[in-house]
């Protein structure tokens, strides 16, 4: 008799997920998977829309990382129309982007995944409230202040803290007001302090905690995958542009290419039970949810960036990176939990970049827009989103109406590795048909380390349509019947 353990939903992540563990007759794990029950269909319903609306439309892919989609989309539009934004426009976008990266990484460490490490023990309150209860009001005050400062400046730049509206092909919608620049300059040192403080807190609370010590070196929480990330001209970590570099599980370079050539290097596969497509390295091919040098499975995101880049772009972050790699015995680091540490190293780089950009003399210049003149055709835009490489790829007709849209998002690229991680951790944690609640917490923790963003991952709308859907109440009564007639299916 087979049995299933279902964790529904997995909490403290962006969007929907449930973990399903199938046990065999002996009670051992036969299979485990993360199922993401959501999808909305952006790649199809954006067809026919005016291209310049895409930064606003695709921001709605994700309410946690709308900035990443907004900026990737704007860059795709720059390429689509063959126009280079003026320096001030690029710098305002970059300032906005680094503020976002900092506040989003802080969200994960203090609210989403971090409480797994910061608040230990069974029946613990793993949430921001638990973090404050465990580590004190001061922690809460600092994170709230820092995120509020960053998001306040973001909303002045972008119109609102949520879905931004300011980026356009060839630049941005208006010059940055002097008051906003002053506010950013004033806030920047505090943000750098906050990022450094978070790293100290990580040392003092997370690395000393039971969860970290138990799992960081545990074989069940390793994945020897390839890694992919953007690097800048000196192979430094770069969030806003550069070359895509891929390294193998031994850290050797497998590929280096301009982001617009991504299709030559990355392919996707489908699984019948999942809405989310799984990208893999086409040079290696799809070998299933396995790691190692012959598997096409690769990872993106904070740990991937640390593993791929030669160094950080800013001095204090570089020092933090060196400490991290020393403690974890050099790169590539394969421990999934190390994503947490890498994220905080990156938050420091983001804060230092905010300080640098806020004080840039060109930031407030009035010239912020080049009006496109060339006919639009095709464009690729790429950024390093908090969760990894994000690619927007558009094609239009001569009127600038979209005829092709492809979004390759971070949580989708990490999808195969997440499956692998969950399966491996489940096999170690569930033995003899028994799973302690704490073991299930640990399993979730491994998945959460990726900071999964499932609204992003499931932006596409794959699968075949059901003929009829019956909504039943818990008592079994039919609440509603939604049907789809076969004559409405377009013939293939």
């Amino acid at each position: 008799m087979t049995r299933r353990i279902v964790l529904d939903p997995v909490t403290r992540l962006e969007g929907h997920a449930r973990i399903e563990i199938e046990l065999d007759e002996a009670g051992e794990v036969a299979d485990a998977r993360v199922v993401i029950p959501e999808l909305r269909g952006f790649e199809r319903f954006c067809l026919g829309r005016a291209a310049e609306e895409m930064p606003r439309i695709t921001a709605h892919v994700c309410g946690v990382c709308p900035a990443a989609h907004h900026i990737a989309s704007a860059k795709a539009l720059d390429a689509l129309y063959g126009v280079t934004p003026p320096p001030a426009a690029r710098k305002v976008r970059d300032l906005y982007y680094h503020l976002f990266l900092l506040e989003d990484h802080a969200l994960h460490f203090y609210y989403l995944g971090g409480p797994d490490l910061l608040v230990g023990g069974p029946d613990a309150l793993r949430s921001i409230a638990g973090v404050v209860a465990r580590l004190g009001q001061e922690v809460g005050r600092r994170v709230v202040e820092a995120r509020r400062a960053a998001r306040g400046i973001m909303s002045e730049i972008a119109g609102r803290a949520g879905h931004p509206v300011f980026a356009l092909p060839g630049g941005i919608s208006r010059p940055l007001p002097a008051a906003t620049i002053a506010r950013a300059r004033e806030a920047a040192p505090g943000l750098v302090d906050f990022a450094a403080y978070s790293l100290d807190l990580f040392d003092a609370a997370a690395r000393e905690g039971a969860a970290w010590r138990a799992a960081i070196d545990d074989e069940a929480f390793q994945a020897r995958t390839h890694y992919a990330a953007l690097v800048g001209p000196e192979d430094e970590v770069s969030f806003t542009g550069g070359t895509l570099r891929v390294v193998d599980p031994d850290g050797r370079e497998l590929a280096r290419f301009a982001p617009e050539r991504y299709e030559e290097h990355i392919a996707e596969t489908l699984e019948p039970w999942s809405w989310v497509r799984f990208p893999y390295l086409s040079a290696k091919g799809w070998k299933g949810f396995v790691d190692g040098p012959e598997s096409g499975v690769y990872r993106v995101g904070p740990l991937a960036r640390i593993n791929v880049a030669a160094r950080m772009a800013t001095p204090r972050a570089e020092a933090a990176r060196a400490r991290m790699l020393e403690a974890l015995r050099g790169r590539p680091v394969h421990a999934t939990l190390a994503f947490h540490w890498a994220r905080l190293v990156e938050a420091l780089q983001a804060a230092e970049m905010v300080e640098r950009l806020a004080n840039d003399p060109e930031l407030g210049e009035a010239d912020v827009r080049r009006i496109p003149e060339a006919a639009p055709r095709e464009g690729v835009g790429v950024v390093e989103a908090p969760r990894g490489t994000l690619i927007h790829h558009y094609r239009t007709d001569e009127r600038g109406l979209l005829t092709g849209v492809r979004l390759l998002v971070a949580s989708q690229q990490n999808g195969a590795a997440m499956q692998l991680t969950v399966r491996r951790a489940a096999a170690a944690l569930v033995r003899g048909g028994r799973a302690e609640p704490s073991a299930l917490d640990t399993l979730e923790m491994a998945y959460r380390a990726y900071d999964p963003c499932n609204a992003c991952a499931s932006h596409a709308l794959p699968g075949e349509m059901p003929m009829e859907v019956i909504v039943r109440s818990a008592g079994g009564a039919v609440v509603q019947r939604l049907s789809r007639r076969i004559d409405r299916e377009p013939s293939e």
Partner: protein
Amino acid sequence: MAFSPRIVAFLCEGCSQHAADLAGRERRGYPQALLPIRVPCSGRIDPGLVLRAFRGGAEGVLVAACHPQDCRHGGSSAAEARCAILGRLLEALGIERARLRFEGIGASEAERFAAVARDMAATVSALGPLDYARRALGRDPASPPAEKAPRRRPSRSTHRLPRVAIHWNAACGGCDEAILDEFPDLSGLTERAQLVYWPLAIDGRRADVERLKDGALDLALVSGAVRLQEDAEWAVLLRRKARRLVALGACADTGGVVGLGNLAGAAAIARTARSGAVRASPASAREPAPLLPMALPLSELVPVDAVIPGCPPPPEVLRAALERLLADEVPAYEVLAPPRALCETCPRRATRPERPALVELRRLASHAPDPERCFLDQGHLCHGPATRQGCGGSCIAVNMPCRGCSGAPEGAPEPGAAMIGAVGALLAAGGLESASLAGGLADVAGSFYPYGLAAATLPEALRSEGEEEGGP
């Protein structure tokens, strides 16, 4: 027996109504299929009424107005412009443009009226039945949609904190982030409420919610469109468990951008998503979570007690709404945002001309708007006239036109129709050949329904939109 179409005819009482009367008195034959609706002026025909006529079973709609140059109120040109936009919208939805017809008919033109009616009946007969309602709603039109204003529920005991659940359906998480911005360390919320379920911020399982007694929750805030069967199950579950169910944000309110998926048609979306993947899926007993045929606003599925509009809800709106909801001060259905149109509080109101007019249509790709002037006056389709206040014009403040995420002002049937109505009037005032100007709109559905397509209960594409592939 031949198919006999139902055609709703909006007749202006200054002209075409007389022509119809005269045609009857003179015994000129015209089809009985015509259902006449008399209006004081064709300019008063809300585009939402035209759509409602189709939804209610009409196979064609005739708008018979004064000849535009003869109209005493200037309404006829607005009606013509609105019909031009509506026709293109219907076409984008796969409905033949000939099913909606605008004609100028003078009071004495009895024969012309009869001829138009005969011709329209013949054209629509040839096109065949539309079956709009079934296609639009994905269910039998005989079963009415959920009531928006449910019965009053007993108020909670004041001796304990209200029990609250926050859930997301087909959402982006932006509404949850907006709540987090209000209660950044949760303490402001946990002092006021017992937080039972909120997957973004605290641990908890679906089973915990299922175990609750019916009505045990005082408040459930649900964001996201209803797109999957699982979303529908959550909607029904939380409706049962919660005394007050609140649609949080544009997707729950009107379908949001998710509603644009209804334009494409689900099969086309599926084809797009499958393209570009090199490996076909092997046969398997396991299926992914099933989809509903359409994306729906929450209120299409279950009664909703209140709406907090916006994408995401603006901080001031959200703060005020949560304040009242947590204090149990929203006794009857209410949209928890100011009722009137954004234009009235627009920071650029002073630059709005006395008699605003659209003389050209501009796109943001090829034009940098002036940072002070009314967007409509510059030819940009700003949704201010058709959008509820509450945001303070935050997009306009950064020199971007409104896209209508807060939904329609009070009294307007739905935001897209309200915007078509407003733009029709502006095009007419512009005095150009309004129909041809409307024809210059690049993307009608996306321009008028960026957030409201699902709420407009418009149908999916009825024809295949061609076999284009999604991946570039």
